[in-house]
């Protein structure tokens, strides 16, 4: 399958390892991974903060970059960016776009997937041949869970990983408190939510907390680093791309 990889602006810039892992994983599964080079950002931050005019060029660029009919699926290692493409682009296009943009947005929306749902739903794979001999807990991010309804899919993928020790995260479905600019505008409330999330994570004794969104992991990881918890964060793709022959070596966590 010819897959268009959307790196997301955050992944591309701050968390390239998660995107590399996604690219490698999809290629290893036998797919043709293409990276439309002019891609930038889905505009989620703008829309979620209340700005719908400003991201029009971003929405247009996304539709153009991935509109190529030879791209059969657009895959991204982010539930919230996939949610933005699937739920917000048409709002922007409807309000401030033209007929062309609306058509383009609808076409791309129909073939856009977050990584775990692409693997499980489209490729029908749960065992990707990964090996990760560590104690791991999984945080389902809000947009994956409630916007995209990925449900158990990431957990099914993780359960199939060789030698992983998966531990359940208490109150897993509670938001970590990130919410994009929410963490800036309502920093104190966000911190209180983060604190509870971190208590649950550290309580599991996991070496790694994983999730399908680098943004939430940046938030949780930033908190875990500040309290020197010893638990690191790692994107789901990084676990799934770790194999016996090229295992992911855990970096020393801040203590």
């Amino acid at each position: 399958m010819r897959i268009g990889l959307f790196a997301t602006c955050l992944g591309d810039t701050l968390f390239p390892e998660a995107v590399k892992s996604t690219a490698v994983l999809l290629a290893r599964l036998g797919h043709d991974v293409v990276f439309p080079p002019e891609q930038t950002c889905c505009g989620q931050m703008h829309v979620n903060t209340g700005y719908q005019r400003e991201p029009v060029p971003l929405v247009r660029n996304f539709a153009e970059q991935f509109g190529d009919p030879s791209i059969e699926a657009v895959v991204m290692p982010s539930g919230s960016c996939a949610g933005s493409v699937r739920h917000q682009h048409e709002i922007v296009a409807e309000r401030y776009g033209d007929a062309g943009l609306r058509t383009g947005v609808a076409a791309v929306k129909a073939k856009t997937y977050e990584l775990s749902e692409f693997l499980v739903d489209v490729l029908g794979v749960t065992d990707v041949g990964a090996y990760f001999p560590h104690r791991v807990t999984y945080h389902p991010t809000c947009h994956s869970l409630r916007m995209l309804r990925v449900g158990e899919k990431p957990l099914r993928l993780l359960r199939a990983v060789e030698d992983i020790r998966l531990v359940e995260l208490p109150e897993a479905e509670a938001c970590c408190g990130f919410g994009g600019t929410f963490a800036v505008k309502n920093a104190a409330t966000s911190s209180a939510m983060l604190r509870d999330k971190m208590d649950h994570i550290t309580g599991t004794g996991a070496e790694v907390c994983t999730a399908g969104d680098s943004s939430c992991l940046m938030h949780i990881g930033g908190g875990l680093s500040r309290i020197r918890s010893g638990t690191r964060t790692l994107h789901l793709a990084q676990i799934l791309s770790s194999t016996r022959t090229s295992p992911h070596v855990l970096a020393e966590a801040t203590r």
Partner: protein
Amino acid sequence: MSRPTGPPTNGTFLGMPAVPPRSPYGTGHLRGTRKFPEAARDELGNEQLRRNLGRATRTIRGKRLDATGELPDWERLRDAGAAIKSDTMNRLPELLEQLERKVTEHGGTVHWARDGVEANEIVARLVKDTGSDEVLKVKSMATQEIGLNEHLESEGITAYETDLAELIVQLAGDQPSHILVPAIHRNRDEIREIFLREIPGVDPGLDTVPAHLAAAARAYLREKFMTARVAVSGANFGIAETGTLSVVESEGNGRMCLTLPETLITVMGIEKVLPRFADLEVFLQLLPRSSTGERMNPYTSMWTGVTPGDGPQDFHLVLLDNGRTAALADRVGREALNCIRCSACLNVCPVYERTGGHAYGSVYPGPIGAVLTPQLAGMHGTDHDPNSSLPYASSLCGACFDACPVKIDIPSLLVELRHQHTEESGTTAEALAMKAAAAVMKRPKLFTAAQRTAGLGRVLAGRSGTFSRLPAPFSGWSDSRDTPAPPAQSFRSWLASAEGAATMRAAAAEGARHPDDDAPEGS
């Protein structure tokens, strides 16, 4: 008292629809004094409040899931409930007229109130007409919204709240903090202290057992119920087809107020009307299971006008606008009017759970409050209108949407209201930053250059030298989070590098050994 300025709201321009006005600024309880982040910060510092809220919301969340999970057709009920409410809004003029006609036919009197001020005046006049200087109250969001108790007091009329939680709040001189359980921020120890302090003749040996506290409230209000001549209630539903009003409750205080006094005055928001009596078959399933997590609340009362020999012989229905038509005029925002006040969204909201209801400054707190309050009362009353901060009081986690029995897409409404706010706010520092960010991001070359030189964070923030301390507006973030340094190489530059190309070639070579159709299968 100031009146809002805005488009023409009277019938001067015949044939030209005018945008209806919001609830008048400075009236009622639809606006706090501080913006949400500041108010929340103080509440967050209250450890007792955090414990009370955490425990209470956890309890109710579990019960609600049990009660809704029990019904195999829960989702179908939600679909029906959502559609009935939307259909109701579409047909509001005819339904209100029908309701008025039916109530009148059955011996009731219908009054219309453009806003809270007018509703308060109507109720006070009706109470005075009876010659009574006190009224019993059934818990009602509409009368809280308009500040009826305060107005009655200014007219020399004493209002007694009879719902246990409302009583606790009233006796403590406090404000409600939850739609269903206004005293959710209080625990049993605090309630005992309030009762010991405020209830005349209470047993000084009163302990903290909830049943004993409830019994103390029973004893206190018993005599009032037996002798009161006027009661004021809200309404959960008003059936247009039959003129039937309904109040859903638990304690029996509602039944007391709706049954024993000679005069009953019901204040109902115009959005509470339902087309058909049979629609109750949906809402009597949705509401109790969503609100208290029960299969059915202990008591529901229904009455139609006046019944000779049974209950109040003088019945008044006050139909309240107070910004509801302004919300109705908003294609997106009107969905908030579908709310049936179950408060499920409050109980699942991670923000509400930490800050409590007072931080929202309105009688409608939590996720629904954050979308309903600005709709009713506006968010541009002043330059620093506290209501303008409400749509941002959410991480957009979506738990409220899942819990809502009438499927109000609260996260989308929040995003819409944020958009309306930025559109009306014009040029702000934030708007400029957003424009700048979009300007960079819409030009791939600029974006790549920005990545290469300084990292995206610097483009957005202006400058970020350290990673444990960031400048305003990110200082709140960096108070409790470290921020990773942008790595030397972005994904795209890695992909374009020799190393990236080699890695991808190697992965593709592996993939060639496992073509699509025999990719390793799930276990």
